[in-house]
């Protein structure tokens, strides 16, 4: 059984990183999926084009929330360009345009979800919201 509920994913679900208050963020964007009730907000704070803080809050399934937590961990410290590139890699990976995980061990924990098309949206919700916060003003 190739479960999606891998240790890393469960760890991020049970102990979410960078979750909660978004008051000190520069920009906040919302992602929601009315079909299943997932609804989260992603915020960033950047200095010199470098992401100092990436945070989220909201409700959703374990995959959605774990993905948001993993995302925050993987993007803090990146330049905004690098973050945008990583989002694009995630979209390609989950869109089956590329078959290899972006070279990041934490991200690989999300790979099992690729076998479940109906849940890809859960993974990507936070990433798409992040992408919007990164858009060039």
């Amino acid at each position, binding site marked *: *059984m190739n*479960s999606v509920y891998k240790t890393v994913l*469960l760890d991020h*679900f049970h102990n979410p990183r960078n979750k909660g208050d978004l008051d000190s963020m520069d920009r906040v964007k919302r992602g929601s999926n009315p*079909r*299943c*009730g997932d609804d989260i907000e992603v915020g960033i704070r950047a200095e010199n084009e470098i992401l100092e803080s990436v945070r989220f809050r909201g409700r959703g*399934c*374990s995959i959605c929330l774990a993905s948001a937590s993993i995302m925050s961990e993987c993007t803090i410290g990146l330049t905004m360009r690098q973050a945008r590139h990583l989002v694009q890699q995630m979209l390609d990976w989950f869109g089956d345009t590329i078959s290899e995980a972006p070279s990041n061990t934490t991200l690989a924990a999300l790979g099992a979800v690729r076998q479940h098309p109906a849940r890809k949206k*859960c993974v990507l919700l936070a990433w798409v919201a992040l992408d919007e916060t990164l858009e060039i003003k």
Partner: protein
Amino acid sequence: MLTASDSVDFDALRKDFPIFDSGPQTLHYLDSAATSQKPRCVIDAIDLCYRNQYGPVHRGLYPLAESATEAYEKARQTIENFINAPSPDEIIFTRSATEAINLVASGWARQALEAGDEIWVSQMEHHSNYLPWQRVCRDRGASLKVIPLDSSGQLDLDKADGLFGNRTRLIAITHVSNVLGIVNPVEKITRLASVNSIPVLVDAAQSVGHMPVDVQSLSCDFLVASAHKMCGPGGIGFLYGKKERLTQTEPLLLGGGMVDQVLADTSIWAEIPARFEAGSPNLAGALGFAVAAAYIEEIGRQPIAKREQELAATAFEALSEIDGVTIYGPENSPYRSGILSFNIDGIHPHDIAQIAGEHGVAIRAGHHCCQPLMRHLNTPSTARASFSFYNNKDDIAALVMAVHETKKILGS
């Protein structure tokens, strides 16, 4: 404990369904409210039709075409008898319950409605019995009114001000809720509606294969269902309509077979029911549907209802003993069919369904095409187990195990 419902050997019946022998792992299929599995007799009837009997319906004079036509019309009679309709001409084959409702909305209500009129539905309707009325009301300047639910999820008729009043043109109501399993008091509604001659449409998608349904004792004007939810094939369903109502109905689809004379600017429709069946009839679909109805009828819908209620009651009891589980709808009661919705505190229903799926238990999670009901329940989604007579207590045990497993994995 589970007891055999009357004298029917349901464990033997389970063997009629090839899917349960097809995989390496036991399939605990608890999603029959979405679509049911198919017995061998239905699968074989479709197979035989395409192998030996296939020809055009209503369109040929050679033996294959004649026997196809005869078989198709016999299928109509089987459905007629299945719901005790007064005449086969009152059975229209459609692609689904959804199409059947849209046919009444576009073909009947659109003509009947005037500005200020009302159509009533309930807060527990499936989107298929909600959206068509929403559109036709908006287009005609009428109001879509909603029968509220009480805290247990049952219709609160006393709070439905004007439901049986003289602005009401139609009441469209589900017979059985596909989320809560509640069986609505349709007979009471048609009786009260009849005082003001208000027509009633019954969405029987979740009832007709699961309990006795008799359109004459229900005294409804329209009734709809899909074959695929009652052991039949996909792509076919039916609309029952009282002759008088069908006469007032414009066809939804125009095309071959539904017209007597096509003139340059106007046309004369064919008789009923042909008028409502534009396009080449779905022969194998109708035959498979009829075999499914006959199969269910042979088991008996009374024993089926009892069996499915028993299974749901057992599951209800087992689940309610688990910490953090909320079951929606009224406590186990005669007003309950084999459908059960629940949630686990702090766990998203998608996770329940996914983990259950990983353990061979097929349940559904989501809004079940009932967003208005979800608003009433104050949750975006639920997990749902729906029982069919082919399920058994192993399926319930597997479901309970999956819930425990979910809590173990994701519980705080």
